[in-house]
């Protein structure tokens, strides 16, 4: 059997392996040890299967690959249409990469209702992968909403503190916002009779959708609101700190690592893909919001006394870069935005895992409780250092490449935005390094901390892949960029056309 025989089904295989695992788990006896190993095996299986994608992806080709298009429901005309391009390919792999680490990191911290926890985690993985590989708007919406329930339950059942408040807030914010997207999707369907992304894009570009010019502004906003809440773009970000602080570690990792990227991915794919004119028209205020997010997120992160909240606000700041890059409409900006998505997923996922390990030992995220941890926990501190520096954007680590590209893209479109955005890099160095200093350097002030155990083998297995990935992505970004760029260029074709039209007039 040729491996290429797998090409049409590989995406379904990756997407539904975790779900199949979750269903099997349902029938397994409640023996926590076996359940953990089983979940680890399933998530690793999905990861290994997902490696098929980058290995067999034709990097120079811009279009969708590994496509599968089957009629699913006749009325409404819904297709089971999957496919990935250079952007969604890596986001899917990011999801499968982070999930086994989430399983490992939850090994000991989840002791109650273990079975339910891993079922929810695996269901969440399926939904997340589904979001990135769907090319049918309905299917996309379905997976989009499907991520909500397991995530809200993970926060509400396994979180800390005001977990119920956080879970409900998370659910309602994102659910209400996505209603607007649903309305926009329904409008498109009512006018065209199809949910197929590729067909809709073609029809929109050819001007074949009736009433499209007059409605497109509203449709753009309908999609945009749903994505902006998910990103979260300032001022829609208030659910994020609550959700992060109360979520269990694995929840935070997937929330920051993958869930937020659904929003930026959505902007890239749908806001830019379907409504290029409107995207250009609205780019100004969106970029301003993104800049506010970058600077405000960084400033708020700086004064956080809570380690996890600090990382959460740093996400607001970093995702601002992504939005800034997307709405610069330059090849560098868009490639950079995609790269920041991946880099942020790896490094912030790593940071949340590190914070979670500290919480397991001390049951607090308060920064002032710590200090001088480098002495009792040298390996932990070194790992933290690498991942933190990746997040800061140190050259040779993954954060640098993406932010550099985004900023150069922003400079090309509007120099002022580039300058303001660049301050964000400085801010992130400030709050992360200051935090690192307070937590790790100096004398051990709190006697309890002196006896803290360094990370063990399992914890290293969970952490080091993120550190290694941060390094590899920083040293050899072309491995990623050479498949991202062709897709980005094809996304930008309508924009260059628009630009030349404007110039022609």
């Amino acid at each position, binding site marked *: 059997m040729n491996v290429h025989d797998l090409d049409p089904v590989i995406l379904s295989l990756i997407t539904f392996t975790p779900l199949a695992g979750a269903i099997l788990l349902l029938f397994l006896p409640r023996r926590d040890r076996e359940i953990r190993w089983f979940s680890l095996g399933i998530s690793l299986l999905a990861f290994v299967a997902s490696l098929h994608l980058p290995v067999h992806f034709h990097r120079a080709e811009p279009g969708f690959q590994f496509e599968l298009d089957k009629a699913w429901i006749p*009325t409404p005309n819904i297709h089971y249409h999957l496919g990935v391009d250079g952007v969604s390919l890596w986001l899917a792999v990011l999801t499968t990469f982070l999930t086994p680490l989430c399983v490992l990191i939850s090994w000991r911290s989840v002791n109650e209702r273990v079975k339910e926890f891993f079922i929810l985690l695996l269901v969440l993985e399926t939904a997340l992968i589904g979001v990135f590989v769907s090319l049918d708007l309905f299917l996309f919406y379905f997976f989009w909403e499907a991520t909500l329930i397991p995530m809200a339950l993970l926060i509400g059942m396994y979180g800390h503190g005001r977990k119920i408040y956080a879970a*409900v807030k998370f659910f*309602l914010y994102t659910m209400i916002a996505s209603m607007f997207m649903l309305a926009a999707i329904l409008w498109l369907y009512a006018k065209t009779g199809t949910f197929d992304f590729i067909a809709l894009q073609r029809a929109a570009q050819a001007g074949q959708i009736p009433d499209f010019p007059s409605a497109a502004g509203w449709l753009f906003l309908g999609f945009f609101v749903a994505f902006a809440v998910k990103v979260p773009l300032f001022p829609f970000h208030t659910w994020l700190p609550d959700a992060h602080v109360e979520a269990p570690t694995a929840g935070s990792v997937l929330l920051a690592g993958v869930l937020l990227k659904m929003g930026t991915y959505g902007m890239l794919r749908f806001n830019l893909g379907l409504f290029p004119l409107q995207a250009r028209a609205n780019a100004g205020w969106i970029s301003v919001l993104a800049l506010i997010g970058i600077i405000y997120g960084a400033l708020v992160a700086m004064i956080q006394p809570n380690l996890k909240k600090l990382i959460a606000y740093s996400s607001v700041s970093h995702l601002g870069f992504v939005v800034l890059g997307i709405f610069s409409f330059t090849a560098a900006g868009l490639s950079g935005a995609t790269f920041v998505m991946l880099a942020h997923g790896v490094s912030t996922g790593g940071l949340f895992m590190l914070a979670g390990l500290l919480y397991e030992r001390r049951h607090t995220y308060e920064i002032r409780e710590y200090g001088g941890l480098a002495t009792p926990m040298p390996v932990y501190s070194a790992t933290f250092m690498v991942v933190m520096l990746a997040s800061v954007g140190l050259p040779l680590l993954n954060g640098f490449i993406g932010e550099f590209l985004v900023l150069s893209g922003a400079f090309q479109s509007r120099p002022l935005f580039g300058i303001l955005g660049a301050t964000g890099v400085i801010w992130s160095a400030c709050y992360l390094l200051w935090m690192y200093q307070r937590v790790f350097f100096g004398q051990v002030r709190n006697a309890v901390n002196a006896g803290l155990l360094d990370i063990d083998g399992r914890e290293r297995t969970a952490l080091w892949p993120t550190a290694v990935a941060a390094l590899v992505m920083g040293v050899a970004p072309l491995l990623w960029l050479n498949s991202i760029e062709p897709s980005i260029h094809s996304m930008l074709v309508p924009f260059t056309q628009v630009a030349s039209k404007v110039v022609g007039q």
Partner: protein
Amino acid sequence: MTLLLLQAAPDLPRAADYLRILPELVLCVFAMVIMVIDPLLDEKSSQRTLSTIGLIGALAALAATLPQAHSPGFAFWSMVKVDAFSIFFHILITAIAAVVILMSYEYMATQQIRAGEYYSLILLGAVGMCLMSSAVELVLIFIALEISSISTYVLAGFRRRAAISSEASVKYFLLGSFATAFFLYGVALMFGATGSTSISVIAQSLRAENTSTLAFAGIALMFVGLGFKVAAAPFHIWTPDVYEGAPAPVVALMSTGPKAAVFAVLLRVLFEINAPGRLGLIWVTAALSMTLGNLSALVQHNVKRLLAYSSIAHAGYLMMAYAALPANGIPAVMFYTATYAAMNVGAFAIVSHLAGAGERYVTIEDYAGLGRRSPLLAAALSIFLLSLIGIPMTGGFFAKFYVFSAAFQNSLTGLVIIGVLNSAIGAYYYLRLLVVMYMKEGGQEIPIAPTPLALHAALAISIAATLYLGILPGRVIEFASQSVRDLTQ
């Protein structure tokens, strides 16, 4: 009236006529068998025997829809019409009756109510509901409506020792009779306006001449009567009290079965007659029902009352489809009634199981910690609640989807926006129940009885239907689309 019938009916009924009401006949026979056997049995063995006979009766009626479906056409002097449309509702109603009987057995045993006529009343109620869906003559519709209503009036008061149940029964009876009187008045005015009570004749004569005020009034009065039965605002006041007082399995029945049947009648009255001036009526009713239902549900503590308000809200969503064009609206209504039946019967099956003797545990707080103590029941209830919210992969999503897109295609953007906002409000109170089940721990733990086999079966059927309609809605919606032709020649 009699004269008309005689003129149109020179012959005696033929054999095919009986075939076309076969499910109703089967239900009648089994209902009478139960009543005859009941006095011969002692109280202990009567529960099991009678419920088994009732179940067999409902299933036999379900099977009888097959020969019925093979002989479509008119029966009994064009008073009954068997087509894809009525078959759809026959299957739905007999299935609801079967599932309700499955969940009743345990309930009646726990509440220590002598079953007796309970099961035969369910079957007789189903007779009325089935007949409503196939009757094409207003007087027959009225009779069918009464058969179904009177059975449910009695059933609502079946917790004889609970005052609240008798109150529910009396309230339901008084207000219900009032509403049926409205309906009958509307029929009379329609007869005055067009000279007939046959739906097709009325449709023809309304098409032929200018619509008289009398016909308008007739439609409006019929709408009031039917609106009461489906608990659409502003005729919904009775719903929460009755749902709270009536036995939980009976609520499962009356929130789905008679509703589905009355929605079927409304389809015939509004679409087949092509009722003049219906748009405004429906717009207001739909918007009011959704908004009042959802807002009131937000503050409920009793799960049964919460589901009552939720059912008002769902009647509102459903009403939206009546403002759409027939080609989209009719299948949307049919799909919605089926989905709503699946998820609501399922939800009430769990409510009635947890309620315990005397229905003591019916507040939201009683559900705290259910996710830990009874993961299966909690998971099942979650599926129904998610479907009621309208989360994809469950039937509730497609139900809303078809209704909203039908309304969209008739340019009812305002109504769709109200509907979408309401779905968001609705998400909150269903979510509250989910949150309590999974994320709160009970102060005092309510006893959870082991689930008997019959309840497992009832839940399995409801879950399977909810998920089937959510994942593969294609076949059902196509079957429903066939009936567009039946209603709009």
